């Protein structure tokens, strides 16, 4: 049980820790998670590894009040679609803010958090979440 999925987590780890996706040098499009081919340029596409700046805005969000067992200690919490400044969108939890204060269009930046853990004896999965930009994130 504890070992289940470890290899899969490990493969995605680098991209989850630092929001590393891909950029197509042919059309300039950014992708996250990383892709093997550019869906626009197909065979003409040239993809390279790209580390996103980790800045963006909230595109849409939901407040979770009924959570699965592993997330009960965190309720209520916010899950949002974040639009990164480079254009890609991803789904992530929003932290360091009360759910009632979250707004669409709000500027956010990525932070490093514990995503989940596989029980008491299992692996701990780390990765990105987002928080509002503020003084302690080095903004405004």
């Amino acid at each position, binding site marked *: 049980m504890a070992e289940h999925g470890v290899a899969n987590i490990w493969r995605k*780890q680098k991209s989850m820790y630092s929001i590393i996706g891909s950029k197509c040098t042919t059309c300039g499009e950014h992708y996250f998670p990383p892709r093997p081919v550019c869906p626009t340029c197909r065979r003409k596409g040239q993809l390279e590894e790209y580390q996103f700046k980790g800045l963006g805005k909230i595109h849409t969000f939901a407040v979770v009040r009924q959570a699965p067992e592993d997330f009960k200690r965190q309720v209520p919490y916010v899950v949002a679609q974040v639009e990164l400044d480079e254009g890609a969108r991803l789904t992530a939890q929003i932290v360091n803010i009360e759910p009632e204060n979250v707004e669409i269009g709000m500027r956010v930046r990525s932070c490093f958090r514990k995503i989940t853990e596989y029980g008491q004896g299992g692996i701990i999965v780390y990765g990105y979440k987002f928080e509002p930009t503020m003084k302690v994130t080095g903004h405004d």
Partner: protein
Amino acid sequence: MVGIIGYGVYIPRYRIKTEEIADVWGDNGPQMARGLGVFEKSVPGPDEDVATISVEAARNAIKYAGIDPRDIGAVYVGSESHPYAVKPTGTIVAEAIGCTPYLTAADYEFACKAGTAAIQTTMGLTQSKMIKIGLAIGSDTAQGRPGDALEYSAAAGGVAVLIGEDNPVATIEETLSFTTDTPDFWRREGEDFPSHGARFTGEPAYFRHVGEAAKAMLKKTDTTIDDYDYFVFHMPNGKFPVNMGKQLKVPKEKLEDSLVVRQIGNTYSGSAMMGMARILDIAKPGEKIFMVSYGSGAGSDAFVLKVEEEILKHRGEVPTVDDFIERKTYVSYAVYAKYRRKIKALG
């Protein structure tokens, strides 16, 4: 000369007031706060641990220094609350800041002085030219047994320090340690909370080690208290460093600025380093800092730092200790217990 080329801190957003904890256990809150010299303490969120706090602090340190993380040749994380019993925190940090794979890493344990032990190690590695830059972190999410005196001060926070020889913002002019086998505080494998020797933690433990390390440092450098502008002593509470200062005849105003423990509690491995970071946030070039950490078990690491002109070029790049102290949200004891897993049924 070897020194700090960058530093960064992280303190979680949540705070609990000493009075709130005292209410739960039927203690006198205001009296407890004054007695301990701790008015509120930081509490990590449910998804924060030593790895996440270390990464945030390290990312700030790299931004502050303006270095390429691939120049970091060693990562040492000092903590008594590493997320895994076996599996280093240092590798998580190294991967998240982008300095893998050509580096060495290890986790350190020495109660509250594991972070300063990491600073000493990276000093040696850079001075011997084994590595160009070393990353030393002191980070903890300390826990006290519910109802124990430690619960009032055990807090969360971390400090990351980059050690190198090129353009330090503060040179480390000298370091030495005072170490003995003293069982003042311990936690056995598998135990959730630490045990301590209660009153025994004062004189033969904290005051002896910090005091002797301080005196040895003054002797070795042939200096007196008057030669320093700021003093930092490990802060298990707000009372001990102040009493230490009195014993060594340190003027109150030279110690005052480092006493972050009053607002955030004891961040264990991050404690003395957090005080040092706050001084580095405000000190002027040419000023001298005298720091002594303390770790139960027991030992003290003493440092003499000199603030350099270079520091003026780096300020404003990353949030200060005060920025983090001021960013806060109070939680009740119930929420604190939920976040800190003191409610076992929630897993």
